[in-house]
């Protein structure tokens, strides 16, 4: 009796679990099966791919640097404060995280566009953000920064608060404490947050195409190119997808190997 009961519950849990796994894994396998492996090198050498690859690499790198320079201090403020307002700020931060990216793109247009909240004051100086590489960076930072800040904040909250007290009694300023004690201790969190933010920026599509448009070499990142190539030459789209898949797996591999144990 007990034996049968155990089997019944195994099946009841095992079948949906297997289904969930299949739902996630089969599309990846399908992509790999449809790839024409011999063609991938020549596909990736297509004139449109290199500019998109270069653009994706530069914009995501800038995004990572922006996260590091701006996101780290924000994470620190969030981590050390228990004020009610802090939880509101944190909640606000999660909005871009769950917002449909295309909505983010519309919001960015309303901000940086020629008639936007900030953009209208830049236009007289001849500065126009939409359709430029800067717009791609802004879109990527908008979607990626929350991942970074929340990851680093989590790491900083894990620090022993006494470290900061001791540093302060020894006369260290906040900046010095962070530089010499705080940041070195949360380096794994910073690296993990950077990897996540970078990967999210690399995959960014909706906000980019809405806000930055789609122009080869200037705003056409790899995901946008995949979308366009699917209509021109699906095999090229598949080849680029495989490259992005490999990159994603590598990022996850680094995360797992180092910080997700």
């Amino acid at each position, binding site marked *: 009796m007990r034996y049968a009961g155990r089997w019944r519950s195994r099946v009841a849990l095992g079948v949906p679990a297997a289904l969930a796994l299949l739902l996630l894994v089969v599309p990846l396998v399908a992509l790999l099966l449809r790839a024409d492996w011999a063609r991938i090198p020549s596909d990736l050498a297509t004139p449109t791919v290199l500019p998109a690859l270069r653009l994706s690499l530069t914009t995501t790198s800038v995004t990572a640097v922006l996260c590091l320079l701006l996101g780290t201090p924000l994470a620190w403020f969030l*981590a050390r404060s228990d004020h009610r307002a802090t*939880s*509101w700020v*944190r*909640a606000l*931060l*999660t909005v871009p*995280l*769950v917002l*449909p*990216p*295309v909505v983010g793109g519309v919001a960015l*247009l309303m901000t940086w*566009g*020629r*008639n936007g909240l900030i953009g209208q004051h830049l236009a007289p100086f001849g500065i*126009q953000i*939409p*359709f430029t590489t800067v717009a791609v960076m802004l879109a990527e930072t908008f*979607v990626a920064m929350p*991942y970074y800040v*929340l*990851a680093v*904040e*989590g*790491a900083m*909250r*894990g*620090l*022993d*608060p006494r470290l900061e007290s001791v540093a302060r009694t020894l006369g260290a300023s906040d900046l010095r404490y962070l530089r010499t004690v705080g940041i070195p*201790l*949360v380096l*794994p*969190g910073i690296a*993990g*947050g950077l990897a*996540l933010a970078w*990967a*999210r920026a690399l*995959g*960014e*599509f*909706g906000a980019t*195409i809405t806000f930055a*448009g*789609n*122009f*080869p070499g*200037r705003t056409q990142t790899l*995901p946008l190119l995949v*979308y*366009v190539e*699917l*209509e*021109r030459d699906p095999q090229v789209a598949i080849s680029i997808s495989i490259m992005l898949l490999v990159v994603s797996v590598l990022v*996850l591999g680094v*995360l797992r190997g180092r*910080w*997700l144990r």
Partner: protein
Amino acid sequence: MSAGPSRPAPPRSPRSARNPHRAVAAAVATLATALLVAGCGSSTPTTSADGTGQPGRSGASAASLEGTVTVLAAASLTESFDQLKTDFEAANPGVTVETSYGSSATLVQQVDNGAPASVIALAGTAAAEPLDQAAVKDTQSFATNVLEIAVPPSNPGAVTSINDLAKPSVKVVLCADTVPCGKAAQATFKKARIVPNVVSKEVDVKATLSKVKLAEADAAVVYHSDVVAAKDAVTGVEIPSQFNTSLSYPVIRLSDDAATKAFVAYLLSAKGLATVQSFGFGAP
């Protein structure tokens, strides 16, 4: 208001405070989940037609029409086909017309990948070439369209003719080279010997038009029908016929279902054609 499920649980307990690495791992794992969830939304830009209704596979016709007709139509047909759907459903209460709009290139690719569709209406006959011919039951031309320049009502680029698009200061938005309006625009610029300052190549004609509606671009090359449909939101600048590119719109029937046949017949009737033409299209 809580921060929501995607927020990593801040490790406040003393145990996790002593073990920051574990806390980081937990935070990163939570975020990785959130990343995947967020990524799902952004990586599916093409929404396939939600054809729940199955057009009958046999030609057996019922006396009064029933069922669902799934219509995929070029983005430029958005307004006219919305009207056709309303009129046709009013005349045939048993029939539901489901419409989905996108670039002709996207729609053809969706049908070739098995998207359920009873009818597909495309911008230009060339767009139909990649379509799996085995699925085609019938093809008829129902409208023509020409290109036109759309500018914001304030006309910040001072565009009054196609030659103004040669000015480097005028920011021009086109359709992508893969979609019919993009191909037609390229042909037109070649004929006019103009190299415009293109700032973006959008995925379909309505996306192209929206950049001018928002006044982010100075000019867009779209169809005459789009300028008509946009009403006061944009101003049209005609392209002379010696440079212009004209497209013939085919309606392609993919089902022998009675309701589908009736919808195509209605589109090709005098009343249907008049509806389409009232949105700025030319006679077939």
